[in-house]
């Protein structure tokens, strides 16, 4: 019997055990690794329809919710102060609307010079230290971590603390480690939210906490979400993109030759790599879709890595093809929860990847791809370390 999720064996392909889920049946009820049953969705139209359907809920406190998450994530996502990513409208919308002005295309355009500076400074430091190195600690992680901490007004001097705590929460190693990491990070953010340095947190405090629209606890959990979502994901995308491009030298050559191809290439990397493999929901009403009925209270798992390889949405979907039209991928989700930071992530990827290949032309992997240790299931997909040289 097929189960979900399953461990990847290649950093850029969905688990081979998912083959059965790719026969064209858009959704089916199967048993998850935690013993619950849920509808696992691999069809592109159905995934988008469900993610945009108001009868579909992101509320983790619903008994039928498919809880395939590490324990510390579950604790944060079911706490009374849980962030808006796990709430439904209108509560979700109320907080999201406080934030969208910070992430508009125009704001991102204004941030580009700063992001570019961060990218080049990070490469300078990496080059000065010399090869070989671990690309994750030398480049992939510091770039988004610096960018998000500056945007939020979180002191970057604390980056080792918040990076490790975030990783401990998302990874859920032992219960003791993740409980302590959660408490430490919530404590840190609560203190920061009371007297924030200049930045997004301070702006939220002035506009919404000081006016009584938001509590300090809500601000702390919102900031925690932005900080965590803002660095782990983008870091993983940078690392996996580097692996994938180095493994496809002809595509890399085209990518380097023409800066005009970068935005479309980044969409293809997002589609192909789908680092957030599953988007979790529960039905709050009966939903008839593709000849089945999802009953109220049943769990829904959008298998994004399979949706992004649906044959009726992408030609020859397992082919990595930087020239294809891939913008309709669901790597950032769909519907009202679609990634708030997607244009920040795009800006970082558009700037970081070409600069890295430009300034380190001899960059190559220092270990074979099949020897890399891959992140376990229920985490943001990727690797924790990437030995490289040049």
């Amino acid at each position, binding site marked *: 019997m097929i189960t979900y999720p399953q461990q990847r064996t290649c950093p850029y392909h969905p688990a081979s055990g998912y083959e059965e889920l790719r026969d064209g049946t858009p959704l089916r009820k199967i048993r998850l690794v935690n013993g619950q049953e849920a509808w696992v969705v691999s069809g592109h139209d159905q995934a988008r329809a469900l993610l945009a359907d108001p009868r579909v809920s992101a509320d983790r406190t619903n008994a039928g919710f498919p809880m395939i998450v590490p324990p510390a994530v579950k604790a944060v996502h079911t706490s009374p102060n849980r962030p808006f990513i796990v709430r439904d409208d209108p509560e979700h919308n109320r907080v999201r609307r406080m934030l969208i*002005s910070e992430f508009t295309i125009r704001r991102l355009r204004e941030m580009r010079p700063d992001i570019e500076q961060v990218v080049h400074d990070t490469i300078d430091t990496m080059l000065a230290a010399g090869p070989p190195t671990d690309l994750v600690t030398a480049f992939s992680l510091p770039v988004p971590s610096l960018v998000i901490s500056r945007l939020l007004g979180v002191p970057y001097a604390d980056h080792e603390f918040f990076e490790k705590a975030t990783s401990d929460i998302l990874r859920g190693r032992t219960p003791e480690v993740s409980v302590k990491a959660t408490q430490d990070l919530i404590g840190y953010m609560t203190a920061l939210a009371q007297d924030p340095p200049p930045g997004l947190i301070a702006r939220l405090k002035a506009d919404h906490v000081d006016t009584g629209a938001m509590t300090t606890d809500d601000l702390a959990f919102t900031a925690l979400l932005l900080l965590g979502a803002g660095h782990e994901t983008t870091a993983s995308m940078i690392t996996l993109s580097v692996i994938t491009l180095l493994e496809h030298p002809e595509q890399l050559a085209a990518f380097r030759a023409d800066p005009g191809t970068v935005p479309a290439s980044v969409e293809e990397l997002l589609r192909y790599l789908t680092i957030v493999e599953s988007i979790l929901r529960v039905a709050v009403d009966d939903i008839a879709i593709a000849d089945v009925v999802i009953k109220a209270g049943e769990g829904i798992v959008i298998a994004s890595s399979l949706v992004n390889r649906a044959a009726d949405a992408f030609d020859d979907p397992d082919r990595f093809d930087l020239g294809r039209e891939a913008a309709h991928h669901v790597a950032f989700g769909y519907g009202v929860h679609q990634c708030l930071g997607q244009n920040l992530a795009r800006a970082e990827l558009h700037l970081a990847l070409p600069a890295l290949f430009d300034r380190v032309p001899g960059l190559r992997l220092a270990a074979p791809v099949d020897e890399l240790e891959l992140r376990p299931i229920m985490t943001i997909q990727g690797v924790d370390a990437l030995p490289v040289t040049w």
Partner: protein
Amino acid sequence: MHVEGDREVCVGAGMCVLTAPDVFDQDDDGIVKVLHEQPDAGEEDVVRQAATLCPSGAVKLLT
């Protein structure tokens, strides 16, 4: 073709602005603003694409 941006349902993802920057913008609050409601014939394809990529259904096409 006539385009509308529903400011109540917009979630500010900016996909419309990315896809058809001559037709859509976001206001200071990050909410969709349609720059011209009657796109030129040459713009209709990207406007249609913006409507399918909009995650919230806020981009509405009336023909």
